């Protein structure tokens, strides 16, 4: 079969919503795009452990400490599921981690912002995980089998994250004036970066069109962003708080909320390394990795020794 036929057969499968599995033929570009997307997603989970991990030691109650630890741990799990999915495409986890550490691979820019108060834990759960879920739910039906299965697992666990975030803010919003101020401040700081999580406008998005055709991506950036704004604009009322956008208002005609201009200059700056915590986050990841090198090596050496001994015994 000539290559063109492979390609058209491949596209037919995608169009018919038949999942692509690891051993199936796939265009090289599809594979590369998936590796990039899945590994970025995995990196985001792993780097995303850090801003929240920042508050584990200071969580204000034993219950909140439990919830936060479990949540950050889930993110490690999500990273693991996603790395595993990417590994079926012929790249090793160590390679991907190497790409993260060298700066070649990106992760979600949101995690380059600092977590300054306890209310940030709630705001991250509600806004950041909320935005992430918007992106992730459609990916449960993405065309690549292992990716879609990983996402189903992720989404199942993720719904607890958003709920606990909102609930935690709800408690604070009914608390003391200091706590309410903390909530408003957190919303003010996390709102715009959350909107940026959906990526550039469709007109400027580099990979969108082909990814939609391959069903690696199922909705456009702007479409998902609008859904998110519509959802949050309503939920914020329950908290008795406001979103920091004077242009936010309901548009009867569109049946959507209009909202203000996103500061794309800030977005691109944070993406390219000028966020408040880019260096700090990456340094923390590298340190954990480097400090762990002797541990990984020792475990491997021990396993090999033991295997050799068993062999000797058997002989």
């Amino acid at each position, binding site marked *: 079969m000539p*290559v063109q036929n*492979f390609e058209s057969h491949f596209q037919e499968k995608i169009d018919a919503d038949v999942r692509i*599995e*690891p*051993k*199936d*033929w796939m*265009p*090289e570009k599809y*594979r*590369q795009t998936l*590796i990039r997307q899945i590994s970025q997603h995995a990196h985001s989970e792993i780097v995303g452990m850090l801003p929240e991990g920042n508050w584990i030691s200071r969580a204000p109650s034993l219950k909140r400490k439990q919830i936060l630890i479990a949540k950050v*741990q*889930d993110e490690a*799990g999500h990273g*693991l*599921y996603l790395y*595993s999915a990417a*590994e*079926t*495409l*012929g*790249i*090793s*986890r*160590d*390679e*991907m981690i*190497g*790409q993260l550490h*060298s700066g*070649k691979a990106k992760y979600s820019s949101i995690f380059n912002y600092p977590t300054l108060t306890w209310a940030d834990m709630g705001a991250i759960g509600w806004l950041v995980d909320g935005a992430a879920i918007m992106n992730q739910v459609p990916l449960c039906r993405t065309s690549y089998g292992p990716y879609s*299965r*990983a996402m189903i*697992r992720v989404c199942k*666990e993720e719904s607890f994250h958003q709920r606990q975030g909102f609930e935690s803010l709800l408690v604070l919003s009914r608390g003391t004036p200091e706590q309410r101020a903390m909530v408003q401040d957190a919303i003010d700081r996390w709102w715009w970066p959350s909107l940026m999580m959906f990526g550039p406008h469709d007109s400027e998005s580099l990979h969108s069109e082909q990814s939609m055709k391959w069903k690696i991506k199922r909705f456009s950036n702007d479409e998902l962003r609008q859904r998110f704004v519509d959802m949050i604009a309503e939920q914020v009322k329950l908290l008795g708080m406001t979103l920091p956008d004077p242009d936010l208002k309901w548009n009867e005609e569109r049946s959507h909320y209009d909202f203000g201009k996103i500061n794309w200059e800030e977005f691109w700056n944070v993406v390219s390394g000028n966020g408040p915590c880019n260096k700090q986050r990456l340094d923390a990841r590298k340190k954990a990795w480097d400090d762990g*090198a002797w541990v*990984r*090596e020792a*475990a*491997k050496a*021990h*396993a090999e020794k*033991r*295997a050799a001994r068993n062999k000797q015994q058997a002989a």
Partner: protein
Amino acid sequence: MNYFRKYYYGDYGDKEAPTGGDTGKAAANEWPLWEVFIRSKQGLDHKHVGSLHAADAQMAVENARDVYTRRMEGVSIWVVESKYIHASNPDEAESFYEPAEDKVYRHPTFYDLPDEVNHM
């Protein structure tokens, strides 16, 4: 020839050159990859749930417990090092699976019985 490359579960690194990166750092010290199968409750089959890395089988079982059963998803765990999985080839899917399509006589609904015959 690039188009005919195949990528298998766990089938990277030692059998084929790693691809997709210019990092040049081979995963020399990486712990092997394992596939994880979990029985969600007594009476059901073990089902493939994903994979993970571990230095040895014992650690793989424990990692599977910590990673894949945090929410009471299982009562029993199997792990197998990914490189030991033998799989059918999708290129042979037609010869493997299509011959079964016309063997309708293997299915109970193929046989018409009078309504009076119950429980069969």
